């Protein structure tokens, strides 16, 4: 009985994937592009060479870290839309420490560690702000987070064009790049940093065990599923809500820190690259189950990277990957709705 249920789930998920591909193909046909060719190009763009695959990993790291963080807030029943801003604040925190210490004689490793810690703190503080608004101000975390996202973007622009502008004139290309010894070391010949990769994998493993096997995770789930009952069972509910915000902010902030130290080596206006939004999609797609986060995030990162060459080869906009990513989530959620409806009827 349990086994057949699992099969039905699987069939629904496959159906969602097929439908999403079908729908995206229809859109491609409507603009006069050959769908198969487009998918082939995406695949080739993501996995065609070691070089392109390392680019996929570069996108995978912040996506996985942010998804890991979101799994914590989702477990607590929170819609942490502010995660995008939390990545940005992580990047700002890291940039701030790097700027402060880049001319010092401290060892680069120490500076980098401090910078990444500052990124964690920056993300955590920004998340804590959304948490305070929610638990003490009665502001829904969706609205609070959305507002804080805009403030974070504005803050980046202000820093880039104001206090942190390049000598001479500020530009959209961001702040002055940091010297190479303050870059997170990369694997020879690849753009990806082993340290960043390690952080993401360790982070994900921590979140998996946190949610799976600890008292903390169980209490967090209780708060998320029924806050009143959790309180009566003795869980300090508002503290847990705040803590889940802060932890998620730390993960998002780490993602921001890696964007600065391992990818762009400076603060740029779109430093978060939309990974916050993408991570929300990933978390929804995997139905908040930590075990699936790594492969699905990899798939999404591959779509992102693979579609980069679409404009060159097929004269298509690279936002096609976004269409496919969005469609997939919509169809999986739709499939889930239909499945539950059928279940209730039978």
């Amino acid at each position, binding site marked *: 009985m349990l086994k057949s249920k699992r099969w039905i789930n699987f069939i629904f998920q496959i159906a969602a994937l097929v439908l999403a591909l079908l729908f995206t193909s229809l859109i491609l046909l409507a603009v006069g592009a050959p769908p198969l060719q487009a998918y082939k190009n995406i695949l080739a763009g993501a996995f065609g060479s070691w070089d392109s695959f390392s680019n996929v990993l570069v996108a995978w790291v912040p996506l996985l870290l942010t998804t890991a963080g979101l799994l914590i807030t989702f477990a607590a029943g929170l819609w942490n839309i502010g995660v995008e801003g939390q990545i940005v604040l992580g990047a700002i925190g890291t940039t701030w420490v790097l700027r402060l210490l880049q001319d010092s004689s401290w060892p680069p490793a120490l500076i980098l560690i401090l910078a990444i810690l500052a990124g964690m703190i920056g993300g955590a503080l920004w998340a804590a702000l959304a948490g305070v608004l929610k638990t003490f101000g009665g502001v829904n975390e969706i609205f609070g987070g959305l507002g804080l996202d805009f403030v974070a973007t504005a803050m980046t622009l202000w820093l880039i064009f104001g206090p942190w502008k390049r000598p001479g004139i500020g530009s959209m290309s961001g702040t002055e790049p940091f010297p190479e010894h303050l870059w997170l070391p990369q694997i020879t010949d690849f753009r990806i940093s082993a340290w960043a990769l390690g952080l993401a994998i360790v982070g994900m493993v921590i979140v998996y065990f946190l949610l799976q*096997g*600890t*008292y903390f995770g*169980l209490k967090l789930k*209780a708060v998320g599923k029924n806050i009143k*009952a*959790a309180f*009566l*069972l003795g869980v*300090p509910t508002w503290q847990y809500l705040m803590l889940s915000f802060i932890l998620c902010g730390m993960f998002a902030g780490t993602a921001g820190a890696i964007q600065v130290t391992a990818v762009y080596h400076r603060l740029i206006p779109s430093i978060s690259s939309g990974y916050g939004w993408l991570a929300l999609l990933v978390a929804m797609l995997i139905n908040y189950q930590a075990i699936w986060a790594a492969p699905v995030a990899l798939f999404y990162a591959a779509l992102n990277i693979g579609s980069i060459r679409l404009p060159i080869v097929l004269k298509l906009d690279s936002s096609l990957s976004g269409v496919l990513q969005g469609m997939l989530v919509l169809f999986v959620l739709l499939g889930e709705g239909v499945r539950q409806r059928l279940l209730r009827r039978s």
Partner: protein
Amino acid sequence: MNVELRHIHKHFGAVHANDDITLSIPAGTIQGILGENGAGKSTLMKVLSGFIQADSGEILLDDQPVIIKSPADAIQHGVGMLHQDPLDFPPMRISDNFIIGRGGALFPNHNAIVREIKQLADKFGFSLDPEAYVDSLTVGERQQLEIIRLLWLGARALILDEPTTGISALQKEKLFTTLKLLAEQGKTIIFVSHKLEDVEQLCHRVAVLRAGQLVGETKAPYKIEKLVEMMFGKMITLGKRKSFKPGPVILSLRDVAIEDARLKLSDINLEVHAGEVIGLAGMEGSGQGPFLRACAGLVRPVNGKVIVGDSDLTGKNYHGFKRRGVSFLPAARLEDGLVPGLNLTEHFILAEKPQGLFIDNSWGRKLAEERISAFNIRGMPVSPVESLSGGNQQRALLALLQDPLSLVLLEHPTRGLDIESVIYIWSKLKERCRQGSAIIFISSDLEEILQYSDRVLVFFSGQVSPPLEAEKTSVDQLGYLIGGKGWSDTFASQRSLHA
């Protein structure tokens, strides 16, 4: 309008909420509907006003059979219902509330509507400002608003569900005058209440419901004893009860006052002893809920002291009370007490003190198996709580209680349970008493209260009675008291104790 209900049946799962009810109400009558909680009054009224549909049966309005599918349908046919909790839109103006209920034009004629509201309000002597916001009104004023709104929409039959709860004496008088006036104009008034006094003052005739059946109809003047007997049934001889030996004081309330939106309880003084069971009797919404929550730190008293054992916990929250051995089990098991989506094992683990960072799964499973067999729960360690039956959910809640406890507070512990579960749950609770816990519980089942309590507090419209000895009280007497009758006789000698 003549309103006629014929052979109405309504089931909710296994519960037969309305069992073949036939009732005919001629135009110009004020019809009282009496019955205790769960007797089927509200169900019947919801059927008539289109909120729910009967499984079978017929509704006739002015001798024409009608099918009422929704509240909007009902008002089209001239039937309007005034709910116990007003169903209005608080953040909007009175005039907007009027416009919402009426379909039609894209741009409603606001001025004309304001004029019409004023005329109607004047007619009944209500002082309602059409431009006022609804959330600035009192419960009584919101009721007045609902009445004129329903009349304005063309209601010829008005259903009022417990309308005298939460309004002032003056507003009640005005309400009754209005209802009498409307009846004289040929409107049909259906007045649902549990307050014998209100029914006596107002209604031309009364129908009494019990356990889903219409058990009797009478006309004014009424014999109160007869009504009480019809409402609560014949007295059943109680089993033998053991009198308890009072232990040390567990809970004392000193000059406690509690307020919520509807009512205010004040000057409550009570001492509860170890091993004692206190039953709280009264119709729903008479103040027992806030009282019980104040004993748990879930509601903060506006005045007075709450002392558990020898520590003053006034102003502490529930977790402060919990640390002193107080536990509260809510009536809404799945909404407030258990966590849907988590299984039994996870619940038992949550209720225990954490041992380290990681959960020992084999320990958790063993714990769950032990509790499941100790509390005779029909379910598996991995069963999600929402898959359990009501009785088993209640057992699970009891199984979550810590050991030892000084005070257990229960809200409707046996509501909706089969008799086997009721007896089992009380045997478990009495075991707690023998171990030195005190119990305070709310129930709407008077027999349960008298059977299991040592002392009883009666709640009526925000008044709390001095404790009654359960042994010396009969179901009839308690029935009177929760209907607000006979307070001065019963408690005259004890007044000093209360004050």
